[in-house]
């Protein structure tokens, strides 16, 4: 084992690539992002083109993953659906992260009744079933991708509020926070300079996991017809449409299923790897 200084000198990227779960998870996530990016410029066929005469074709040289009940190219639909999944994940997690972490940090910094109020609010959010919330939301504002994203984002807020508060409380109890107070720092500066950097790894890990959950949730909502509306392709709706054909064309359900599973797996693996890499102590001990 070489000296810590030498290891640190090799650069973050080198270290990241040597980390097995980060490397494999990152590769899967990169594949997801790459496919989504590619679909903006090119897909084998149009994902929207309905050719009823070519319906339910098995995989072939022309249609690599076959066609669906309306004769649309499955591969093209999956590719365009990836865009949809990423967009949902990014926006929903951002909503949850921003609002939730702010609330969690506030609760940890103020304690007392503020903490109680925030946490009871989070409990309320948790107790309310996510799908019910989404149904309520879409019932009021109409089913659409945007409303589904907002509903999933709101569902993420209490998750991050809880995790942010719990992690921040641990940091607040550390002696270096007492030292910062003895140096005359106020709650806001301690939160920004000491607490937030120290809970960042936990938040990053949670964000990747929530990203995966958001993709799943969007698939579930679209499956119920509450998310992405036709003709825009979505993995969840593809599953829904494949359901009626499950005995005649089982592959139609398998492909979007694999796409969802691989994305979720990749994000989870990447989150695990990130947790190790973001922590300087673990990283240099390796």
């Amino acid at each position, binding site marked *: 084992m070489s000296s*810590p200084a030498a290891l640190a000198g090799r650069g973050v990227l080198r270290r990241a690539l040597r980390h097995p779960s980060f490397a494999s998870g990152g590769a899967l996530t990169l594949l997801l992002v790459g496919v989504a990016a590619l679909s903006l410029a090119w897909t084998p066929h149009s994902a929207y083109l309905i050719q009823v005469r070519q319906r339910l074709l098995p995989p072939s040289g022309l249609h690599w993953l076959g066609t669906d009940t309306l004769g649309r190219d499955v591969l093209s639909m999956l590719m365009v659906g990836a865009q949809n999944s990423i967009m949902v994940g990014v926006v929903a997690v951002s909503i949850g992260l921003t609002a939730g972490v702010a609330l969690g940090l506030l609760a940890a910094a103020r304690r007392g009744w503020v903490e109680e109020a925030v946490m009871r609010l989070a409990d309320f959010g948790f107790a309310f079933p996510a799908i019910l919330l989404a149904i309520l939301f879409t019932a009021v504002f109409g089913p659409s991708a945007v409303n589904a994203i907002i509903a999933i984002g709101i569902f993420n807020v209490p998750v991050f509020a809880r995790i942010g508060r719990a992690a921040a409380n641990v940091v607040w109890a*550390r*002696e*270096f926070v*007492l*030292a*910062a*107070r*003895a*140096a*005359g*720092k*106020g709650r806001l500066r301690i939160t920004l*300079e*000491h607490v937030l*950097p*120290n809970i960042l790894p936990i938040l990053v890990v949670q964000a990747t996991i929530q990203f995966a959950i958001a993709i799943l949730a969007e698939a579930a909502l679209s499956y119920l017809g509450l998310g992405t509306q036709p003709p825009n392709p979505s993995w969840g709706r593809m599953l829904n449409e494949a359901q009626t054909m499950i005995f005649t064309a089982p592959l139609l359900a398998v492909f979007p299923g694999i796409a969802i599973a691989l994305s979720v797996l990749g994000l989870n693996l990447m989150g695990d790897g990130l947790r190790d890499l973001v922590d*300087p*102590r673990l990283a*240099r001990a390796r």
Partner: protein
Amino acid sequence: MSEILLEARDLARHYRLPRTSLFHPSPVVRAVDGVSFELLRGRSFGIVGESGCGKSTLARLVMALEPPSAGSVRLLGCDLTRLPAGELRRLRSQFQMVFQDPFGSLDPRHTIGRAVGEPLSLLGDADGAARAERVAEALAAVGLSPADRAKYPHEFSGGQRQRIAIARALITRPALIVADEPVSALDVSVRAQVLNLMQDLQDRNGLTYLFISHDLAVVEYVCDEVAVMYLGRIVERGPTQAVFRRPAHPYSRALLDAVPRPEPGRRRRRRQLAGQVGSATERPAGCAFAPRCPLAEPRCRTQAPALRPLDEGRFAACHFAEAMLAG
């Protein structure tokens, strides 16, 4: 006589515990219960006592990190407990703290330079180059290289980290440094180094130390004056030499007897204390130490002895203090 730098008056800190039953009032822990002392500029004042006697709470009260339940702390004539937040913050440059655990008192995500410079960030008068220079100066004063400021805490040993913590306390050029068990987490071999460093810094900068420790040898080595605490109260106070040679309180004597001393040819009679440390929630009516005291008489259990002056600037809270000094 030199100037009084720090004055604690009837300082108390009570904590309310969660109630054990719906029908009982929640128990109160009297962690610090009426402590008074003065600290002269340029001197070192030691506070000793076993774990749980309220030493660290006292340190946090003096540092104005916790509000006292009663009493006051005056530093340079200002009552820290009544100062508005902004003024207290400005005054903080005059009193800094060194913590017990050199692994916990430095943020693992901040470089040494940032940690050492942290107390400066509120002073406004030091930014950029001036700040970097003060950091380098403070690091040099504790025997570290200015190049170390780009490193992270985990790259240093315990002794080095405690030097960093001392550098951080020194950087605002404070009058008072409160050191809460500054060497007890360190290897014996590094202790003397850190203690000598602290003494050198005192000689050079005219620092005043409030030194909290359970290690009597350390206090004897460093402090001019010492106070012995038991269950939140000072039971004896006086010049270190006087207290250590001829303790006037049975608890001080028991503490001193518990220290093994390499004194060939002289056998010391060990007086071991019987019983448990009393609970700080249920304080007995009389002397808190009476249940364990070898000298206890019936009146000790009903009548609490006050801290009263004896010879040589000494104070003790025991009905038999004179007899102990005579005997």
